């Protein structure tokens, strides 16, 4: 199963005190039972940078550890120019949505990489997940 990993889920992976940590534990336990090692995580460089900035608030070691482990466990897709242009276009076009340019880019990458689900605790990302036909794990 290929899963897109959002920054809101990446942060509690590194920070056990995070509010979403109990939910993350439940999701990961279910994934372990259902899929074993047959899992692939995909994320973007932009998303990783968001998560690193947040982990850095906890300390340098936390951001370094997060970077090393994500690099080891996930496919980090660099956002290319065409994805960036399309994400910005969608961000500017939808006035009623609170998703960020990064969210739109993530949804595009998740689709392009044929992810089946998204692991996210960000409610702004939810409508994009549904529109892209991806299952939400949260």
């Amino acid at each position, binding site marked *: 199963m290929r899963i897109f990993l959002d920054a809101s889920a990446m942060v509690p992976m590194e920070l056990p005190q995070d*509010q979403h940590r109990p939910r993350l534990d439940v999701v990961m336990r279910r994934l372990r039972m259902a899929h074993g*090692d047959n899992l692939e995580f995909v994320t973007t460089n932009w998303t990783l940078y968001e998560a690193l900035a947040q982990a850095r608030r*906890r300390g340098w070691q*936390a951001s370094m550890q997060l970077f090393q*482990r994500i690099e*080891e466990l996930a496919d980090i897709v660099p956002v290319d120019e065409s994805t960036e242009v399309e994400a910005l276009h969608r961000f500017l076009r939808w006035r009623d949505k609170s998703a*960020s340019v990064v969210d739109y880019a993530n949804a595009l990458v998740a689709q392009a990489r044929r992810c089946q689900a998204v692991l996210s*605790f*960000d409610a702004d990302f939810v409508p994009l997940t*549904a529109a892209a036909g991806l299952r939400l794990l949260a």
Partner: protein
Amino acid sequence: MSTRFTVVLDDELYRETKVRAASDGVALKELVEGALRAYLAGEPAVPRPRFSWEKWDRWQDEAEALDVELGPGPDDLSDIKYHLYGYPKAGAERGLTLKLAEEPAPYNANQR
């Protein structure tokens, strides 16, 4: 069955690939075949990192140990929009909750 084909490569690229393949213990033929298969499958030519629960468990142990070392900390750093974009805090304040979003399509671990 195999087919022989000839390609003209950039000298430097060929040299670097040969050196790397030798150090990785991979035959050039395997490397080219792997790249072509990945291309046909729409996969990136570079192999993806493999997820493993062993690595995951090790990470979680390290994260727990670091957390103990650092002591009490904030519990809302996963609220990216609040911290990095200046949005109001997620949850009831913004009328957005994950609980609502989950209702129409709850996650079923048994469903692939």
